[in-house]
């Protein structure tokens, strides 16, 4: 066991996989010699050399296209897109190429790659560098989508993503890079598609992802201590595959559902899960399922404004309390 940052977990996760398999290669803007703008790839260039860790031009389409071509023909590339907002300049690969080529070719082509990216708000970067884009990916058939909330999951899910034979979008939260957590020694390999109950409870289920997980846990602790409401917090971790078993199981126990989403309100992962639960577990629900989200607006830059829009522990507490107490 050792305590490391989420940022260092990214480095360790990539290194673990590159060490294991020579076919794992890594490319992106400023990722090699400079170690990445979030310093989340420092040392990889030195350790694995210029053939396996490569700086690219500012050409997101070339980055993802090249990753795909390499993946199709035998490598296991990890591509970095610096900010997830930039998915918009290479979205054709994410929406139309990666996820469709296996199906269209009736199984002849494969696309085993990982796209890592800095996702989410909290850095006061404004509307074009702060978005949570998990739904941009979840909505596309053929992708897998994960978003770790802590250093251990970073390593384990990254390993699972690299070893997975399908294209995986790996969303790292920018505001978590500096946070710390314990990780076991030695190789860590997790499985995609498993949610984690991070705090068991009886009165309501709260689903959260990435940065929202610690906030949901904090809220749950307060709800217990101050209001006697015992919430089960689930770290969804993987949006595709989605661990509906764990989620439906929890709702069948607590009978109430809350989702805590950082992405803007419309068509988020919360809407998808609420719809699944409303359809498949309607009679388990004792009251309306509630989504707690960022409002449906572009993100403001100023710290004081940005802090006001993302779901906070206080807002979660308030919303859960008011909903449950009628």
């Amino acid at each position, binding site marked *: 066991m050792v305590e490391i940052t989420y940022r260092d977990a990214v480095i360790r996760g990539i290194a673990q996989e590159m060490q294991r398999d020579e076919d794992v*290669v890594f490319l992106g803007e400023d990722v090699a010699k400079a170690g990445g703008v979030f310093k989340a790839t420092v040392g990889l260039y030195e350790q694995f050399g210029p*053939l*396996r860790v*490569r700086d*690219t*031009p500012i*050409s*997101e*389409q*070339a*980055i*993802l*296209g*090249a*990753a*795909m*071509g*390499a*993946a*199709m*023909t*035998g*490598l296991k*590339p990890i591509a970095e897109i610096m900010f997830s907002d930039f998915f918009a300049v290479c979205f*054709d*690969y994410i929406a*139309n*190429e990666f996820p469709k*080529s*296996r*199906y*269209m*070719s*009736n*199984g*002849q*082509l*494969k696309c*085993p790659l990982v796209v890592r990216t800095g996702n989410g708000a909290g850095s006061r970067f404004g509307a074009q560098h702060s978005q949570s884009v998990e739904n941009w990916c979840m909505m596309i*058939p*053929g992708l*897998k989508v994960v978003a770790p909330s802590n250093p251990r999951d970073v390593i384990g899910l990254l390993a699972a993503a690299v070893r*997975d*034979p*399908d294209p995986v979008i790996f969303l790292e939260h920018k505001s978590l890079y500096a946070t710390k957590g314990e990780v076991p020694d030695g190789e860590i390999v997790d499985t995609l*598609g498993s949610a984690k109950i991070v705090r068991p409870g009886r009165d309501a289920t709260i689903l959260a992802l990435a940065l929202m997980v610690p906030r949901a846990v904090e809220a749950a602790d307060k709800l217990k201590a101050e209001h006697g409401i015992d919430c089960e917090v689930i770290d969804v971790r993987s949006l*595709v*595959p*989605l*661990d*509906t*078993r764990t989620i439906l199981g929890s709702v069948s126990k607590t009978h109430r559902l809350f989702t805590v989403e950082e992405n803007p309100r419309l068509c988020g992962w919360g809407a998808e899960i609420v719809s699944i639960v409303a359809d498949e577990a309607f009679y388990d629900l004792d009251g309306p399922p509630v989504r707690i989200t960022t409002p449906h607006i572009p993100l403001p830059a100023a710290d004081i404004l940005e802090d006001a829009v993302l779901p906070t522990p206080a807002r979660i507490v308030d919303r859960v309390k008011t909903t449950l107490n009628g």
Partner: protein
Amino acid sequence: MALQSDRANGGSGLNDDIGEAKRLELYRTQVTIREAEQRAYDLFLQNLVKGTSHLSLGQEAVAAGFAGAMQKGDLSFCTYRGHAHTLARGVSVEKVLGELMQRDNGLMRGKGGSMHLTSADHGVMGSYAIIGAHLPIACGAAWRAQYKGQKDVSVCFFGDGTTNIGAFHEALNFAAVWKLPVVFVCENNLYMEYTPIGDVTAVHNPAGDRAGSYGLEKIVIDGNDADAVYRTARAAYDKARAGRGPSLVECLTYRHSGHSRADPAKYRPEGELERWKERDPIKIYRERLLQFGIGEKVIEAIDAEVRNVVDTATETCKAAPMPPMDILTTDVYADGGWAWRN
């Protein structure tokens, strides 16, 4: 449009670096494409080809020349106008027509359709229907070869109109900087869909005049002369295999048919089609064969054989069943299925 460069003494070459066997192969490939495409058009008129389809009638020499110079293991990346390149790599007419007819015997059993012909076994690593998308993908395949020390070349085909989209620029720069073994082949058939390329492009040769932006040589060749194409291809592949990086080749050619399906191509100025038909690649190549002393009989035998293959394929496809429903949800993911939840 005049030739601006004829790099390898192609068009009129009397030297015999190509040889009879290769010449017959190039001829057979062109005729196969011609006959198969013509058949696809007929089947479309009979409502047996569904969806869309983009023929390469008139552009056969490009496909034949580039494929003819490839080695086994070299990779082709095509567009929606990819039947020709797929056939040129040796994929059977039946498999191609089957896909166009959306039958179970098609290359992808009807799941992909005419715009996405793929035959990994033959090195046809997909046909891509979003303009420009496959140029970066070809770079990636070439990067794999470079990284693994493998000697195959990735060859990427696209049209003149494609040179104006962002992905073209990113791929060319990327390939040049990384010195990748990739060959970019622009088939300049003078039109995007219905709009003349000159109306929407700042330079005369949409690919050739841009090679300099990537530190590459300007190469513009007669795309209707399979020998010229073949020689250019060979040189570009040699360069790629030798680790000397990418090439960008612009082939001047013309499509005899409309852009797709029922397009009557009314936007073409009078006489243009006729002028190009005088330079029909198959006509040119027949004359070439005769010039090299290959007899009419040999040529006619090939013609007959090809026609026979296409006829048989047509009948097989007509008799082939439609794809079964159980393939609908297969091969979304590598486990063979489509489960996005547990």
